[in-house]
């Protein structure tokens, strides 16, 4: 059964400059926008002499800058604040294997930075590109991935993975687990959009919800129940904001993949990750509402087989152990 009219599109994006961020499903969106000739913004391109096969290992070409996966609304807000000097977290380095990783993107490089200076140089450079995104983009696409996160007790910093998983060490006196609620997520996204609009009043936002289920949960619930809760909250927030603001749209990638009508056919055999044809199907619905630019040539991207979605969610399995 072919379901049509999944999505109408609130505003035109075809010739607009588009930036992406979010949980790992957002990588597919950015990649397909680029591939189909949209004005996809990549403010932080790889060094010209780095082989293409390495780009993803170093966090290049995944999103509009090298921030890695941003799972929660609070992380997104804090990224904006960190980039604009409005928030300086007290914990800027996590030790790992004799070096240091950035707690806010601990897997951005395959090896830890050799010292704090190297990490600082990389972070400062990166944050300059985050600022650039908010001045250059016309559309900011954000895929909401999780409600669960790990928070620093002292200053409220929210991390993409639990401390101790990809660096640092878990200390229950320093960190706590938080399952963000509807009101908190909504408030964070509203605050984020307000801040962006002070810099770029014309910015529009497009929210999606990742159809990738949780691999583990730090709540005491069954992971399927926790997934349902998490996705429901995120979906409700996205829907509420899209209803409330003219400049916010919602694209139902979550529904297209997860609807019972499709009987899970868009999932890989692991029943969790999305098959390439599932992603193709989602994006084909998107392109019905937003056709690729007429004169745009299809751009080469890595073969689908070679494209490895960089997803920390496997690492989140450790959440359960720490709960």
């Amino acid at each position, binding site marked *: 059964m072919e379901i049509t009219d999944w999505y109408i599109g609130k505003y035109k994006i075809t010739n607009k400059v588009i930036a992406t961020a979010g949980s790992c499903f957002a990588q597919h969106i950015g990649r397909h926008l680029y591939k189909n000739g949209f004005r996809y913004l990549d403010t932080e391109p790889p*060094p*010209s*002499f*780095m*082989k293409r096969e390495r780009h993803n290992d*170093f966090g290049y070409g995944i999103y509009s800058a090298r921030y890695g996966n941003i799972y929660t609304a609070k992380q997104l807000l804090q990224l904006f604040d960190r980039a604009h000097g409005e928030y300086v977290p007290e914990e800027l380095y996590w030790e790992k294997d004799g070096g240091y990783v950035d707690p806010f993107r601990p897997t951005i490089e395959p090896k830890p930075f*050799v010292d704090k200076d190297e990490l600082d140089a990389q972070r400062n450079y990166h944050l300059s590109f985050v600022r650039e995104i908010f001045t250059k983009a016309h559309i900011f696409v954000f895929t909401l991935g999780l409600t669960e996160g790990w928070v620093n007790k002292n200053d409220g910093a929210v991390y993409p993975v639990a401390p101790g998983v990809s660096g640092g060490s878990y200390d229950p006196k320093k960190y706590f687990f938080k399952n963000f609620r509807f009101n908190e997520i909504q408030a964070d996204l509203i605050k984020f959009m307000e801040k962006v609009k002070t810099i770029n009043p014309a910015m529009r936002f497009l929210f999606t919800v990742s159809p990738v289920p949780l691999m583990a949960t730090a709540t005491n619930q069954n992971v399927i129940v926790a997934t349902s809760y998490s996705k429901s909250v995120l979906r409700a927030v996205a829907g509420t904001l899209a209803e409330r603001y003219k400049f916010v749209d919602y694209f139902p990638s979550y529904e297209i993949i997860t609807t019972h009508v499709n009987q899970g056919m868009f999932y890989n055999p692991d029943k969790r990750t999305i098959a390439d044809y599932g992603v193709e199907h989602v994006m084909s619905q998107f392109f019905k509402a937003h056709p690729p630019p007429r004169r745009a040539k299809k751009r080469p991207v890595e073969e689908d087989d070679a494209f490895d979605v960089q997803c920390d969610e496997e690492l989140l399995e450790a959440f359960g152990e720490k709960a």
Partner: protein
Amino acid sequence: MKLFITGDSHIAAIKRGYHILKGQNDSFGGLEIVFMRTDSEMRKSMYIDALTPKLPKYISLYLRELRKLKLEFHNPDMWVGLSGPMMDSFVTRRPDLDKYAFSDADTEGIPVSKAMREAIVLDDQHHHLELIRELKKAGAKVFVIEAPLPFLELYEKLNLPPEKKVVPFSQLYRQRVKQALAEMDVPLIEIPEHCVNDRGGMKIEYHVGKEDDFHHCSPEYGVLMLKKIIDHFTKVTSTA
């Protein structure tokens, strides 16, 4: 002892040096030296296209060519000498090199982390390191002949920024490859010290002299390098 010397275009200077010495009735320290030619397609794939998907095919062709030369891989008196590893010019001759900062001390440019630098070097040398692994797997004893350093005066002509960028990157490039070779227990014959100038590049008098050539050395340099190779292996023979 027999040395099979092969590799990229930098072999030419050494081979010319060999003929100069031969003309002078040099005995080469009692070593038998054979230069192996490779056809241009194989050379391009083996020594230029570092990440070509056809690399395994060319490596096996390469091994076959060596066997044709009756190289007995397991003979303890036979060595295969390769030039090519440590040839950094595909990276150091990039016109945009000055955009990047390769050390913490360098505050001008895009910061390139140590992990990135390592990846760049190991990717650029992937083909050579693979070939060495395969040769060793086949039982051959391998040594490496260091490729010439950049001719900084010529880099300046190309508007490349020698001191600030080329020299530091060339140094860390070679350092990383040296480490990889040491890990594989592969001896390295380094450039004769007196061929290096104060700036950390090749002395210009060892340039091949062709205007449009920015990195190859002269036959005179080939003589010096070959003598260093001979010295190394005569010492090996005498201590064996």
